[in-house]
C-alpha cells in the first residue's frame, strides 16, 4: 500500500469523513437491532425493526427468521416432507403418496423443497389451517396444472429423529429411521377444483368445511415467530413416535 487514491483522498476530507462516520454508525445500529432481535425481540426492538425494515429487509440484513442455531431439539428441527396422492389411488397405501422434492441431497435445489415443507409444517403443527390452506392450494394448483393426472390429496409429514437408544433397540421399528413410527402427519387436505380450493381432512370419518385459498387472512411468513418454536405438533396418529427425545 503506497498512498490513497484520488477518490479516497476526497473521502479523507473532514466533512466527508464525518458523513461516512455517521452512515457507518447508523448502519451498525440497524444491524445490531436486526441481529439481536433474532429470537425474542422486545417491544422496543419490534418498533425499531419496523422503522429500519425498509433498509434491513431490502438488503436481507434482517435475519429474524433464519435458524443460525441449526437445531434446538424441537419438532421443528426434524425433517419435513410434503406428499401428494394422485387421483384414484388409495390413501391407505403408503407407496401411493409421492414426495414433493427434487435434486440431490446437499444441493440448494433440494433444500428449497425441504424449507417449503418445514414452513408449511410449522403452521400445520400450530393449527394455523388458514396459512396451511394457502400453501396447500398453491401446491395443489401447480401440481394439477403440471401433471396429466389430477391430485386427490396433499399431506404434510414430520420425519422424527432417532435417539441413540432407538438405534440399538430390540424393536426393529425403532431401528429403522424410515419406519412408520418415525412419521407424524400434521395436515392433510383434499384438493378440489384443480387446487383452487382445499378441504382439510381431520380423519377418515370427519371432514372440515372447505377453505378457499383466495381471500384467506394472510399471515406473515417472516413474522417474529418465524419457523422457530418448541411446541409439540398437535396432530398425532395412534402408534406414531413422539417428538425427538433425550438420548439419556
Amino acid at each position, binding site marked *: 500500500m503506497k498512498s490513497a487514491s484520488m477518490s479516497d483522498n476526497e473521502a479523507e476530507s473532514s466533512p466527508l469523513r464525518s458523513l461516512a462516520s455517521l452512515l457507518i454508525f447508523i448502519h*451498525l445500529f440497524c444491524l445490531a437491532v436486526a441481529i439481536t432481535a433474532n429470537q425474542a425481540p422486545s417491544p422496543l426492538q419490534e418498533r425499531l425493526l419496523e422503522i429500519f425494515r425498509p433498509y434491513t*429487509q431490502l438488503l436481507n440484513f434482517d435475519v429474524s427468521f433464519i435458524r443460525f*442455531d441449526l437445531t434446538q431439539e424441537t419438532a421443528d428441527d426434524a425433517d419435513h416432507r410434503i406428499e401428494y396422492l394422485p387421483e384414484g389411488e388409495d390413501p391407505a397405501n403408503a407407496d401411493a403418496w409421492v414426495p414433493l422434492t427434487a435434486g440431490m441431497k446437499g444441493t440448494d435445489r433440494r433444500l428449497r423443497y425441504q424449507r417449503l415443507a418445514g414452513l408449511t409444517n410449522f403452521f400445520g403443527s400450530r393449527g394455523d389451517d388458514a396459512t396451511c390452506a394457502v400453501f396447500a392450494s398453491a401446491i395443489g394448483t401447480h401440481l394439477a396444472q403440471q401433471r396429466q393426472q389430477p391430485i386427490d390429496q396433499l399431506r404434510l409429514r414430520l420425519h422424527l429423529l432417532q435417539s441413540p437408544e432407538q438405534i440399538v433397540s430390540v424393536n426393529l421399528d425403532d431401528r429403522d429411521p424410515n419406519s412408520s413410527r418415525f412419521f407424524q402427519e400434521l395436515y392433510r387436505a383434499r384438493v378440489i377444483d384443480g387446487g383452487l380450493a382445499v378441504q382439510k381432512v381431520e380423519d377418515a370419518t370427519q371432514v372440515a368445511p372447505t377453505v378457499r385459498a383466495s381471500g384467506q387472512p394472510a399471515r406473515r411468513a417472516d413474522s417474529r415467530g418465524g419457523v422457530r418454536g418448541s411446541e409439540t405438533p398437535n396432530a398425532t396418529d395412534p402408534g406414531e413416535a413422539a417428538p425427538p427425545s433425550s438420548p439419556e
Partner: protein
Amino acid sequence: MRWNRFWFTPADPAPLCGLRLLAGVLSLYYVASFSTDLTRWFAADGLLTTETVRQLTNPETSDSGAPASFHWSYLNYAKKPFELWIVHLLGLAVLALFTAGLWTRITSVLALVVVLSYVHRAPMINGQFEAVLTMMLAYLAIGPSGRLWSVDAWLAARREPPAGSRASSEEGSVLANISLSLLQCHLAALYMLMCLTQLGGAYDGENGATWWRGEAIWWLLAKSESRLVDLTFLHTATGRYVVAAWTHAIVYGELAFALLIWKPLARPLLLVLAALAWVSLIPVTGLVSYCLAMIVANLAFLDAETWRAWVPAALGGTRR
C-alpha cells in the same frame, strides 16, 4: 482517534478482490441452482406465485400504517416462462461479469440486485446461505473489488505502462478498508448471534438446551433426510463423548471467533479452526452452500499479503 484509524486508514484492496472471485462463484451457483426449477417455483402456475408470496408475506400494513414487508424483486414482473428465462439468463450474465471483474463498479451493484431479487421473490424458501451471500455482496459493492485479478485490471494494464498499473493496483484505498471492516464486523456479529441462539434454547428438565448438553450434533446427524453421511455409529458411549466434544467445540469456536478474531496473534489459528468446524458440519447438516459461504466470508480476515500470494498461484500465475 481509534475510530478514524479503524475505518479510514487506506487498505490494500487485495482481500476484497479475492473475495469478489469467491463470492462471485457462490452467487453464480446460487442463481444457477434455480435453473432446473425456475418455472416450477416462479411462473404464473408455479408453486409460489407472486400472489401466494404476497399472501404469505402479508400485504397488509402494520399497526403504525407502514408496509409490513419490503421484498422487491424484478422477478415479480416476469410471469411467463420465456420472460423468466430471459431475466434469469441476464442475471447469470451479470454475475459472470462481476466474477470476472468487468465494469466491476457497476456489476458489483447489479450482482447484489440480482441475488436479492431471487431472495425476495420467495423469502420463505431462503436459508442461512442467502443471508451470508447477500452480506458479502453488499459490502463488495462498496469497495474497489475489481482492482486486482479482474478484466478491469487487465484492460487498465493494457492502457498504462506496467510500472504505472502496478503502482495503481498497490495503492491503498479507504473504501476498501470501510468495505472490509464492515464485512468483518457483520461477520463477527453473526458468529455471536449463532453462539447466543444456540445457548439460548429453553430447558424443560428433559429436553432442550441441546447445545449446553452436548447433544446438538446428534440431533443434526440423526436427520436422515438431510445428512450427507450416516454417522449414527456414534450412538455408543464413546461416540457420545465425540458428539459432545464436537458440539462444545462448535459453540466455543463461534464464541472465540466473535471475540478473539480481532487479535492478530489469534487470527490464523481461529481461521483454521473455523474452517475445520464448517467442513465438519457439511456431512451432518447437508448445508453445503452455507458452510462454504461461511468459510469464504471468514477469509475477510485473511491478510493482504496472503491473498497476493495465493490468488495468483490459484489463477495459474496471473499477476493481474
